[in-house]
C-alpha cells in the first residue's frame, strides 16, 4: 500500500509530496466554503482518474501535526491487494437514518468485507441510527469507523462527496475487501465528568427536553453564562454530556449538541438520549484531552499488530467540541496522537460533528461524540 498526501491552499493550489496517480482511493477534507463549488473535486478527479474520491466538509482539517481551517487536506491511497467498494445514499433527515444505514450495509455486505469507513452528513442524520442500520445489514463484526461531516461552529449545512462534488444530505461509505487489509481503531475522550448526576426525564430520540424535570437548555445557558449562551449550539460543545444506561454500567457514551430550540427549550444531540438514563456534564482539561487523543491513537496502532510499522495511514476524526474548547492548543492533541502513531504513519483527519468507531470497552460500533477516534489502515505485505 502506498500513500500520497496532498494539500490545497487558496494561494498555492494543490501541493503534493509524491506521485500516486494510480491511487484507487482518495480521501479529502475541507471547509464547507472550500468544497461547496465542486471545483476541488474536479481537480482531484483529474489527478486520480481511477480512484474513488470521497470527502466531506469539516470543522477543521488535520494533516499530520497541523490543524488548519484554510487548507484542504487529502490523501491518495494505492491498495495493492485490497478491493474497494463505494456506496452512497441520500438522507433528507434524521428519521431516515436507520434505513439509510441499512441500504449502505446491504450495498457493501460481502463475505470478504473486512471494514467500512463512513462519512455522513453531519446534521440531517441520527448517527446512532445510521450506525445501527449499517452494522445491522453488514454484520456486527465488521469494523466500522468514520465520522459526521462538520460545518465549523456554524451548524448550518454539511457536505459529503462520493465520486461526485460534495453535497448536503449524503452518506458515503467505503468497503474494504480481502484478506490483506489491516484496520485498527481507537476511540477516547479524555473529558472529565463534573457536577451532579442527573436523570433524563424527558426526551424523544435525539431530542432532549428535561434533566431532573428541568429544561436541559436552562442548565446549559446557566453554565455557559449569558455571553457564551448566545453562541449555542456551538458553545454547547464545551460541555458535552456523558450518558449512561443505569442497567448497563461501563458502557458510557458521550453526546455532543447539534442544535437548540429556544422556544421548546430543547436540545438536539448527535445520538439517542434515552429517558431514565443518567446524564452528567463534562468539561475538558487541555492536557487530559490530549492524553485522550493519544490513547485513541495507541489503540488504533495496536490494532495493526505486527503491521504497525508498515506504510499505512491514520485517519483521525476528532470532535469539533474539542477544537472549540482548546483553540490554539488543539494542536496538542494532534501531536499527542502523532507521537503514539509514529513517524511512518501519516495522519489525515478532520474535526467532526460525530465520530464513529467500535466502543473501546464493548467493541460494539457506535456513534461517539467529543472523542478523538483513530482508524489505522495498512495492507499485509
Amino acid at each position: 500500500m502506498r500513500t500520497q498526501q496532498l494539500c490545497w491552499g487558496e494561494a498555492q493550489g494543490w501541493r503534493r509530496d509524491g506521485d500516486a496517480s494510480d491511487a484507487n482511493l482518495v480521501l479529502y477534507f475541507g471547509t464547507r466554503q472550500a468544497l461547496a463549488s465542486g471545483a476541488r473535486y474536479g481537480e482531484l478527479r483529474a489527478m486520480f482518474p481511477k480512484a474513488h474520491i470521497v470527502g466531506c466538509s469539516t470543522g477543521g482539517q488535520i494533516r499530520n501535526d497541523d490543524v488548519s481551517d484554510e487548507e484542504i487536506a487529502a490523501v491518495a491511497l494505492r491498495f495493492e491487494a485490497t478491493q474497494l467498494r463505494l456506496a452512497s445514499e441520500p438522507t433528507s433527515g434524521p428519521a431516515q437514518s436507520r434505513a439509510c444505514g441499512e441500504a449502505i450495509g446491504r450495498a457493501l455486505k460481502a463475505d470478504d468485507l473486512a471494514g467500512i469507513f463512513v462519512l455522513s452528513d453531519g446534521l440531517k442524520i441520527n448517527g446512532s441510527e445510521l450506525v445501527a442500520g449499517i452494522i445491522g445489514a453488514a454484520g456486527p463484526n465488521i469494523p466500522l469507523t468514520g465520522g459526521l461531516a462538520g460545518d465549523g461552529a456554524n451548524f448550518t449545512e454539511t457536505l459529503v462527496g462520493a465520486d461526485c462534488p460534495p453535497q448536503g444530505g449524503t452518506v458515503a461509505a467505503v468497503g474494504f475487501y480481502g484478506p490483506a487489509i489491516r484496520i485498527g481503531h481507537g476511540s477516547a475522550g479524555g473529558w472529565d465528568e463534573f457536577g451532579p448526576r442527573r436523570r433524563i426525564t424527558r426526551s424523544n430520540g435525539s431530542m432532549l427536553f428535561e434533566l431532573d424535570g428541568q429544561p436541559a437548555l436552562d442548565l446549559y445557558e446557566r453554565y455557559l453564562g449569558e455571553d457564551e449562551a448566545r453562541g449555542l449550539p456551538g458553545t454547547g460543545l464545551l460541555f458535552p454530556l456523558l450518558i449512561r444506561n443505569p442497567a448497563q454500567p461501563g458502557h458510557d457514551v458521550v453526546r455532543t449538541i447539534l442544535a437548540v430550540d429556544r422556544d421548546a427549550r430543547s436540545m438536539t444531540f448527535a445520538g439517542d438520549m434515552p429517558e431514565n438514563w443518567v446524564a452528567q456534564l463534562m468539561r475538558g482539561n487541555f492536557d487530559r484531552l490530549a492524553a485522550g487523543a493519544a490513547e485513541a491513537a495507541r489503540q488504533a496502532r495496536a490494532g495493526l499488530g505486527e503491521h504497525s510499522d508498515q506504510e499505512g495511514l491514520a485517519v483521525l476524526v476528532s470532535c469539533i467540541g474539542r477544537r472549540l474548547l482548546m483553540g490554539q492548543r488543539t494542536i496538542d492533541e494532534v501531536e499527542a496522537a502523532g507521537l503514539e502513531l509514529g513517524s511512518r504513519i501519516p495522519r489525515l483527519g478532520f474535526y467532526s460533528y460525530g465520530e464513529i468507531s467500535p466502543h473501546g470497552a464493548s467493541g460494539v460500533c457506535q456513534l461517539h461524540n467529543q472523542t478523538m477516534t483513530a482508524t489505522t489502515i495498512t495492507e499485509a505485505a
Partner: protein
Amino acid sequence: MHKLFARQLAKATKPSGEVDLNVLGELVISAYEESDRDQRRTDRSISLMIEELDQLNRDLGRMIEERTAALREREAQLQAQNLRFNAAVNNMSQALLMFDGLGRMVICNERYLRMYGVSLEVAKPGCTVRDLLEHRKVTGTFSGDTDEYIESLRASIAKGVTHAKLIELPDGRTVSVLNHPMDDGGWVATHEDITERRRTEKKIAHMAGHDSLSGLPNRMLFHERLAQALVGVQRGSQIGLLYLDLDRFKSVNDSLGHQIGDELLKVVAGRLRNCLREGDTVARVGGDEFAIIQVGIERPLDIAILARRIREAVRAPYDLAGHAVMIDTSIGIAMAPVDGIEADQLLKAADMALYGAKADGRGTHCFFEPAMDARMKARRALEIALRKALTAGDFDLHYQPFVSLEDNRITGCEALLRWTDPERGDIPPAEFIPVAEEIGLIVPLGEWVLRKACADAARWPSHIKVAVNLSPIQVMHQNLIPAVVSALASSGLAPERLEIEITESVLMHNTEMTIDALHRLRELGVRISMDDFGTGYSSLSYLRSFPFDKIKIDRCFISGLPDAKDSIAIVRAVAGLARNLNMIATAEGVETPQQREQVRALGCTEMQGFLFSRPLPVEQLSLLLEPYRVPLARSA
C-alpha cells in the same frame, strides 16, 4: 520556550525568516483570550457546580433528616408494636411457637417454656422442632415417637393443611397441638392445655346421661344402652328388661319429707347397683322408677333370680337420718327377643308387666305375657267409658238397709254405686272403682254419689240415715269438706243423718291429714264409720286414733258363723270393743236367721245383709221405707 509560543512563532515567521510581529501578536493575544475564556468557564462551572452540589447536599441533608425522623418514628412504632406483640404472645393462654420455611424456630412464648419446663437456652431462636421434642423427651414432657411426629407434621405442612394432634403427657395433662402452615413454608404451632376442658366435657357428658341424685344413668342414656343391647340381641343373645318402682314411696316422701325420700332413692340406687353383674345397666327413669338391662341371660330363671335378689335388697330395712324405713318394690319383666326386639316395644311390655305385678299385689315380680297387652287395652277402653259414663249419667245408686238388732227396724241405708254401661252391661264396682281412683275420676264421681245419696235420703223418713263410702283419695282431697257441705246444703239433709264409711286403708295413708279431715266432718255433725273392719291390718290403734261412731265387722267373719270358732271370737271381741268405746257394732253380710241370732248374742247392735234386704234401687227402697212414715202420719 513554551510549546505554544514556539508554534506561534513558527506560524508568524515568514519563509524569509522574518517574524511578522502583527501575526505573532494576534496569535498571542488570541491565546491569552482563549486562556481567559477557559479560565472564566472553569471558574463559572466550578462555582455553579459547587452551588449545585451544595444545594444537592442541603437537599440530601434535609432528606436524610426527614427520613431519619420517619425512621425513628417507624422504629418507635415498631418498638411499641413489638411490646404489644410480646405482651400478647406471652400472655396467651396457649403456648405459641413459630417456625420458618427451613424449620427453624423464630418465636417461642413464655407459656411454652412454662408448659413444658423448657429453658430459653434450649428454646432459642434457630432451634428445630426435633431439638425441642428430644429435650422434652429427656425431661419427660413428651413420650411420643419423635420421628413419627415430625414426619406427620412435615407431611401436613407440605400439603398446606393444619396438623392437629392431641398429646397425652406422661404427667396426665392433655395438650391439643395445632400446627398451622404459613405461606413461606413455615408454620405456627399452638399448644393448649385442655386437661380441665376435657374433664369438664366428660363431666357434662356424664351429667347429660346420668341422674344427678342417684348417679345412675338417666332415661336418655338408658335408651342408648338398651339400643346397644338390642344390637346384641339381633346377633343371638337374650336380654332381660326389668322395670320397677318402689311401693308406697310416695307415703315415705309425704310423711318423712323429700330429703329422706331422696336419701332413700340414693340408697336404693346403690343396692340395685350391687345386685348387678358387669355389663348390666341400672337407670333411674322416673321419680321412684328404675329400669335394669340384664345381659347374657340364658333362660327366664336367670331374670327371676335377679328379680328376687333385687326385691330382697330393696326390702332390707333402711336407716335414714334416724328413721327406720321399710319399702318394697314391684318388678315388671320383659325379655328380648321373645317379647320384642324394638326398644319401645320392650319398654311397654316391661311397663305392662309392672302393672301386672302391682295388680297381683305389690311386692312381687311379674313377667310380661301377651294377655297383659289385651288386658291393658281393655283397661284403656274402661277408662274411656268411665269418663263418658259420668257425663252421660250412666251411674246409679242402690241402697242396702241396715237394721237394729234390738227391734229389727231399719236405721239406715248404705249407698252402693252401680254402673250400667250401654254396651258392657252392669260393671261391678270392684272393677271400675280402682280405675276411677287411678285416673282421678273418683273425686267427681264421689261428689256425685254424695249429692245423690243426700238428695235421696232427704226424701226418706227423717230417722233413716244414709251411709256413703269414701275412697282414701277422696278423704285426702282438699275438696272433701266443701263437697259434703254442698251436698248437705243442697239436699237439706240433717248432717247427723249422713254416715261416712271409710276403710282401714284410709288411715294407712297420711294419717295426720286423714284424721284432721275426719274431725272436720265430725264438726259438721256427720257420723263416721269404720268399714270392713278386720280385713286390713286391723290395728287397734286405728280405733284409738279417731272416735268412730260405728264399726262394721267384715262379712268374712260373719260368713263363718255360726260354727267357725275364730270368727266367733273375733266378732265377740270387736263387738265388745265397740260397746266399751260407745260405738255401734254392725255385722255385715248376715244371710241366715242363725247368723242374725248369733251376732246379736255376740254383742253386735246392727246387722246388714241379704237376710233383711239386698241392695235396692231407690224406688223399691222407698216402698220398703213406706211403713216407717207411719209414726209421722200418726202424729199428723
